[in-house]
Structure formats: structure tokens, C-alpha cells
């Protein structure tokens, strides 16, 4: 209850600050849309030169991309911690966080949220509807619930990986450039994993399980039964990674020494 109240207070505060610079906010939403369009354009241009990507059609790839956008939007709105190291460790801001009455990670989520990212969910669903209607996909009554579980699982996969990477900063306080680049790697979960070689497929499934934010769960909705096993693993992997990340974070916090004064 306490957490929910604090959360809502932060949300209303956030809205006030954002609405002060309206032009900038509009630009930011525009740039998000643009970013989503860029990836779509990439797919469209590529399929201007080929019909199939190792057995997957254009519309299927677009559908995967649409699905990916939804958990990614949730992740982007609440887990904006790619500059955690610089912002909190190097500048010593973590000291302040630790004096707050809520869990340190929750406090950082509150401070760093970017609610306008949630617009990505609308784009994602629109893209899925577009691709789905071209593929004549049929929906059962339980599919929306499955969708919800898959989306939450996917968002947790992303969150887990990034929280884990952020936790490394507790041990090494030098600047690292891994996090921004991890966003690039995250993009490869959007393509069917059978195009990669075994090593990369293994990495994308078990080590940096980005495939669970795109191709695996989408395979369920696309009716690709050969991937169902992986599809249903999505929430499991999501919760497992997030749990490991929280444990690492909690251990890391005890190792934090503080920088500066």
C-alpha cells in the first residue's frame, strides 16, 4: 500500500515536470515513434529484396517486431538504468538512495521512470494487429491472458539483464560502456533465432535471453508449434532472471562503499 501511494505521487510529480517543457516532450514521443519506424523500415526494405527469411515471411517478422515493442515499452518506462553507474555510483548519488525508506531499486525506478515510453505499447499492438490481420491469425478467448503473461515475462527478461549489469557497478566503479551497447544486442531477439549459429542462439536463449522478448513468445501467437516449448518458458525465464538480478543487486548494495563526500 505504501509503495503504491509513493508510486502514484511520483507519477503525478513526473507529469508536472514533463509538462513544463511541452515541445520537448512532444519531440521525445516523436523520436520514440521514429525509432520504432526505423526498425519497421529496416524490415520492409529488407523484404523488398527477399521473400522469406529462413522460412519466416515478412508479416511474421513484422508481427514479432510488434510483440517485442510491448514488453520493451514497459521496460523502457520503468527500468531506465542504463546510466546507473555514472549517475548513481560515480556521482555518489547512491548514498542518498540508501537513506530512503523504500527498497533502493524501487527508489531508482521511481526517480528514473519515463512514462512516455509506454506509447510504444500502442505502436506495438497496432503493428501486431496489422501483421496479424494480413496473416489471418485467429484469437481464442484465453489469448489476451497469454499475451499479458508473455509481455510481463518479456519485460522481466529485459529488466533482469539490465539490473544484473547495473549491479556490476557495485563491484567496479569505473565507467562502463556495456549498457548502451546491450540495447543493440537486445535487437537480435526480434529475428527468428534459427538464422543465427549455435553459439549465438545459445547466448540469446540462456545467457542474454533476448529471444524471449521477441521470437519465442511470438511463435505462440503465430501458431508455430515447433517453438511452443520455448514460448511457454517465457514467464519462467523472466521471473528467474529478475529474481537472480534482485539477489545480485541486494548483495551488491552491501558491497557499496560510496564515492565522493
Amino acid at each position, binding site marked *: 500500500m505504501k509503495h503504491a501511494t509513493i508510486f502514484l505521487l511520483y507519477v503525478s510529480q513526473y507529469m508536472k515536470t514533463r509538462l513544463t517543457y511541452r515541445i520537448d516532450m512532444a519531440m521525445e514521443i*516523436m*523520436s520514440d515513434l521514429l525509432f520504432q519506424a*526505423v526498425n519497421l523500415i529496416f524490415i520492409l526494405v*529488407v523484404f523488398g529484396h*527477399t521473400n522469406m527469411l529462413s522460412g519466416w515471411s515478412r508479416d511474421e517478422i513484422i508481427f514479432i517486431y510488434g510483440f517485442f515493442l510491448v514488453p520493451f515499452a514497459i521496460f523502457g518506462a520503468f527500468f531506465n538504468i542504463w546510466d546507473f553507474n555514472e549517475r548513481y555510483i560515480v556521482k555518489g548519488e547512491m548514498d542518498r538512495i540508501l537513506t530512503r525508506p523504500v527498497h533502493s531499486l524501487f527508489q531508482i525506478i521511481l526517480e528514473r521512470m519515463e512514462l512516455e515510453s509506454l506509447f510504444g505499447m500502442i505502436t506495438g499492438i497496432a503493428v501486431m494487429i496489422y501483421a496479424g490481420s494480413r496473416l489471418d491469425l485467429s484469437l481464442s478467448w484465453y489469448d489476451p491472458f497469454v499475451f499479458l503473461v508473455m509481455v510481463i515475462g518479456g519485460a522481466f527478461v529485459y529488466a533482469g539483464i539490465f539490473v544484473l549489469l547495473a549491479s556490476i557497478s557495485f563491484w567496479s566503479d569505473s565507467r562502463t560502456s556495456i549498457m548502451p*551497447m546491450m540495447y543493440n544486442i537486445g535487437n537480435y531477439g526480434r529475428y527468428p533465432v534459427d*538464422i543465427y549459429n549455435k553459439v549465438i542462439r545459445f547466448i540469446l536463449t540462456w545467457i542474454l535471453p533476448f529471444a524471449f522478448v521477441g521470437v519465442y513468445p511470438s511463435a505462440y501467437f503465430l501458431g508455430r508449434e515447433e517453438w511452443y516449448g520455448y514460448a511457454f518458458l517465457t514467464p519462467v525465464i523472466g521471473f528467474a532472471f529478475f529474481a537472480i538480478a534482485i539477489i545480485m543487486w541486494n548483495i551488491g548494495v552491501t558491497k557499496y562503499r560510496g564515492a565522493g563526500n
Partner: protein
Amino acid sequence: MGKYIEMIRIRFLMMLAYRTNYYSGILIYSINIGAYYFLWSAIYGDKGEIEGLSVIQMTTYIAVAWMARAFYFNNIDREIAQEIKEGKVAVEFIRPYHYLMMKTMQGLGEGIFRLSFFSIPGMFIVSLIFPIEFSAAASTWLFFMVAIILSFIVNTQINLLTGVLTFFFFNNDGLIRAKRVVIDLFSGLLLPISFYPGWAQSVMDFLPFQAISYIPSMIFTEGFKGSAVYEALLFQVIWAAILIIPIQALWIIAKKQLIVQGG
């Protein structure tokens, strides 16, 4: 002139202090290039070539485009925006150098650092793993050197332009982000310009973005031959010259109507 060279040197040394991070960066870039390699191999399937590029040329293109990006890429737009927001820029006005020139030199220092500690070793490692073709002709390398210097200039000019716009918008993180996305797409980093449909290509001919990534990468992969190389370099030079005008104009207007928000 001496003071600007000193700025390059200082930024270079500053980056050197954090060099260990770059080795992990090379690994991540290699994974990145690798995934693109597989994606493109799947796209090519059994096709020998698309738009005049073979799959090996395509891999080379991707690798060199990313490695060249490490050289021309910088965050000076963000730095300028930050200094304007914090009011630090007021002090910069009274210092005995051109502020924008100083920023460019800092960007160059960063670029030279990444070129020597990131791009060159990175390219070497990537070429061991993936099938990449290096040209044997000295002229290709020479043209490529010229092209990446020009791509640094054009990219930096666009960064300066977005940075200086903070004077007018006060807070322009959105624009900076939008610019980055536009550059990734229209510069040819993700896709060679020749892959786009014809109408899109003719639109892009009127925009400066392909000077940033497409031209140096095509020169490196020898996708451009003969007179096409000279035309491409000319395209870069012309844009580098044109872009000076809006930057200088905005700078003069900004100086007149500067509002320091804090500091």
C-alpha cells in the same frame, strides 16, 4: 591553432584513463556485427548479390560501418545542451577561443582515441571471425581515410547544429534523440542507401546524412568504383561547406538572445 591541438590532446588523454572499458566494447561490437552477419546471410539466402553487393561485401560493409562509427560518433550535442542548461556556456563566451571549434576538437580527440584503441583492434578481431575482404589497393585506403575525415566533419556539424538549437528550445533531449535515430537510418549505418526504393534514394540525395556512413563504407568495400568515388567525396565536401552556414547563423543569433537559465 596550438590551443586547439592541446584540446585534442587533453581529451585523448582523458579517454585513455578509461581505456579498459573499450576492450569490453570491442567484444560487444563484435557480437553486434556477428548478429548482423547472420541476419544478412539469411537475407541473401542463395542469392549471389543484391544491388551489386555480394554477401562478403555486405559483411565488410557492416563491419566497417560500425568501426567507422566509433571514430565519427561523439556526444558533443549532448555536452553543448548540458552546458547551455547549466549556464556554463556564459563563461565559455568570454574565453579566448571559438566555443564550437573547441567542442569539435574535443570530439576529434575522442574520435582519434576510439580509432586507435577501438576501431583498429576491433576490425582486426572481427576480420578473424567473419569473412571480411580488405582491399589491396592503396588508393582505396587513401580515399577511405579522406572519406572518414569528411564524415567526422559532417556528423560533428550536425551535432553542433542540434546542440546549438538548445539555445532556442531550452531543453532539447527529444531532438537529440530523434537526430540520432535519423542518422542511424539515413546515414547508411543499418542499410546501404542503394537498398532503398528509388524514390527514397532520390530524397536522400538532397540530405547530408549519407556523407556520414554510406560513403566511407562503400569506398572501403569497393562498392563505389572509378568516378563514383570522386563524386561521393565531392558530395561530402559540398555538405561540409554548406552546413557551416546554418551553424554560424544560429550561433550569431543565439549569442544575441542568450538567456542563461542558471549558473
